[in-house]
């Protein structure tokens, strides 16, 4: 399974506190019922919404299709596998990144 323990535990724990523990603590006075109902429904629906997004991305059946400039940008900015020195072009060393737009 592609699930990671930490995010699941943190999100589930957070919404469990909001939806199960808080209603007993926070609700006082004439609006007790309304506050409790709101907390429970909010926690349940928000946790469910996060869970569905998580489960959908857990075991992806397709991967992202990227344009070639996007590939280079990802490699340069996020992965760090490409630096500006990697490119051996006849252009002078002060070439701006715009030269790599193909």
């Amino acid at each position, binding site marked *: 399974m592609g699930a990671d323990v930490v995010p699941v535990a943190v999100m589930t724990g957070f919404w469990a506190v909001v939806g199960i523990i808080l209603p007993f603590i926070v609700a006082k006075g004439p609006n007790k019922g309304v506050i409790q109902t709101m907390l429970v429904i909010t926690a349940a629906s928000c946790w469910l919404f996060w869970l569905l997004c998580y489960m959908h991305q*857990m075991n992806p059946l397709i991967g992202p299709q990227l344009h070639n400039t996007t590939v280079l940008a990802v490699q340069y900015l996020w992965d760090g596998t490409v630096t500006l020195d990697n490119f051996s072009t006849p252009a002078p060393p002060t070439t701006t990144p715009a030269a790599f737009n193909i």
Partner: protein
Amino acid sequence: MGSIFRSEEMALCQLFLSSEAAYNCISELGEIGLVQFRDLNPDVNAFQRKFVHEVRRCDEMERKLRYLEKEVEKDNLPILDTGENPEAPQPREMIDLEATFEKLENELREVNANAETLRRNALELTELKHVLQTTQLFFEEQETHSSLPLEQRDSEPNSSITQNLLPAEEGKGPVQLGFVAGVINRERMPMFERMLWRVCRGNVFVRQSEIQQPFIDPVTEDEVLKTVFIIFFQGEQLKTKVKKICEGCRATLYPCPETSQERKEMGQGVTGRLNDLTTVLTQTTDHRHRMLAGAAKHLRTWFIKVRKIKAIYHTLNMLNLDVTNKCLIAECWIPTADLARIQGALRKGTEKSGSSMQPIVNRMHTTIAPPTFHRTNKFTTGFQTLIDAYGVASYREVNPALYTTATFPFLFAVMFGDAGHGFLMMLFAGWMVLREKALIAARMSGEIWNIFFGGRYILLLMSLFSIYTGIIYNDVFSRSFNIFGSAWHIGPNANATEEILIEHGGLTLDPKYPDIYEMKPYPVGFDPMWQIAVNKIAFQNSYKMKISIIIGVFHMVFGIMVSLLNHTFFKNTVSIICEFIPQMIFLLSLFGYLSFMILFKWVAFGCGEDFPADRQSRCAPSVLIYFINMFMLKQDPVPTGCDVFMYAGQFEVQIVLLVLALICIPIMLFPKPFILRNRHRAKVATRASSEEWLEEIQGAGSSATNHGGEEEEFEFSEVFIEQTIHTIEFVLGSVSHTASYLRLWALSLAHAQLSEVLWNMVMHIGLAQSSIVGCIVLYAIFAFWAVLTISILVIMEGLSAFLHTLRLHWVEFQSKFYKGEGYAFVPLTFKHIINGEEEGEG
């Protein structure tokens, strides 16, 4: 649970009030605002009711007050609003109020009439002054243009201008020219001249001069431009003609002396009189102003008092006089929780009136359906209004508004799903909520503003939820945040070589390699890699459609659970067995199973080594096709190496579920009408047998003591048809409503795409600029982008998503349990009289 879980228990009570105390008691009840009076005289004409004279007097007083209010507003005086709540005055004080208003009105009318007369006089004098000035100019000009030698002119200083300038013919004597002078509206001047020319056959001479300063018409208070004219003619006949024409064209003629000396004297006299008149006029307007200022201080209090009196008398008209003619009987609906409070108020009213007879509250038992009363506060009122707009809840059924406080903003946010737009909405809603008191006190008009302001709490919640769903969708003004680091990388297995990139223009990442996909997804929300992917929509569509179905199934199951609460409360066991259970089984075995299949596919199928060969991506089935095949009992061919079914035993499980669902349909359809018919027959039989028994014991001739004598009719065919409709509605509705929840997908897709298009086509151009001029271009483009964002994406899309959320609640959720056949509780209350609204009750 708070009382908005279900509507309050209401009691039908009879009030016995002594005639002296009735007025004060009703006044006290109106201040509390928790009693709804029933009209005990519905057949009586409005003009024949007992207190019709008092109501008429109140109407008359209100008319006088409205006249005063209009006059006060004309003078731009502010009406003082201290926010105090004056009590309804006693009946005997009404006469004092009437006298005060009468005096004020008469004085005001007198002052206004005087002012008008003075203004008219002033107007005439001013016109006369202008006439004198202008004719002076005319005659001076004539004198300088005279063809007679100068000495002759000087030697005859008093010669009239009317002396003939041409030498007279022999024997005819000098001819005298007559003239008239006056003032006419500038618009009429051309018509006037033309008429003079035609009628007098060109024998008159007209000179005119426009008056620069506009006059104020004393009646209409408009500005009018006028012209001075002077007409010269010869002979008496022309004079009469000219005078008639002037009368017809509504020109005012003024007597103008011939000699310049007399003119000067007249002018001085006119100026003097004009000054006197202006002084008197100013004094009159000052007096009026002082009067109105004094009245304006009390105006609001008077309005409230008069409206309260009127409301009390309208209510008194609904009461009945009892046989002894000493006390009044009222029938009213009171929430049982407030009975003690009402009794306290009645005691207070009786004390105030000094009556000795204590009021009696007698609770009656009845079969009439009571009104529906939800005790709401400023937060829950908005949601309650939304639900009541569809239909007021039946008496004591579960109130959907309680759940709507959380589900409504959530479903809105699923469709709106952009953290940036949600943030903007939050700013607006937050401002309205924090500045609540000041905005209420400002009492802004404008229906649209009032609608938005009334829904400020709803807007605030919607915006907060939208920020959350925007974070999950990873969509902030159509851009994504990369907080935790993307789970996708361009690893060596991606073959991202220069040749491949140039040849193919791009590449697709394959999730089966650990160096491309980390095997653990982005922790919170959508991976930022998808925002820059070409096939983002394909991935997101699959996601959004699935969550729409799952959320929809949850919402509908929740609705059916609420119906169980209703059945339990009304002790309707038949419905629990014949409606709730089959409905749950039907929905869960079909659409619950669909949701299960979605979840199973998410967990069981994937790429990479962890998954067996028949659970790889190429074998992943379409859940929708499986669902359809479940009904059609067939299987589709699959690629080699893949299993026809998702899990072992799927075929058997699906058959069982299908059979279960099909069995539920006749259970929903048949048992209940028959059971109800048998119950009715049993009831009729026991009633008949007990009547016989009573007759035997008490002897013949005793009438049945049925309270109300209501024979409950039972039409079997009607009940059966109703049950059929109910069943068909549920069965077909389960399919259509589940599909209807796909609007959650549709709207969020539309919103995301609109947002992205706006960014790519507008903002991107600005950000791609590179020079100093580009800075200014960016500034202008940002303005354009911001206006379109707010108007289209926040306002228009917000309203659209709001509407669809409302529909999902009204139709898909509420059709599972809501009857909505009640009528609202409308108590006698003075609250909106104090808030200054025009409508009164009764």
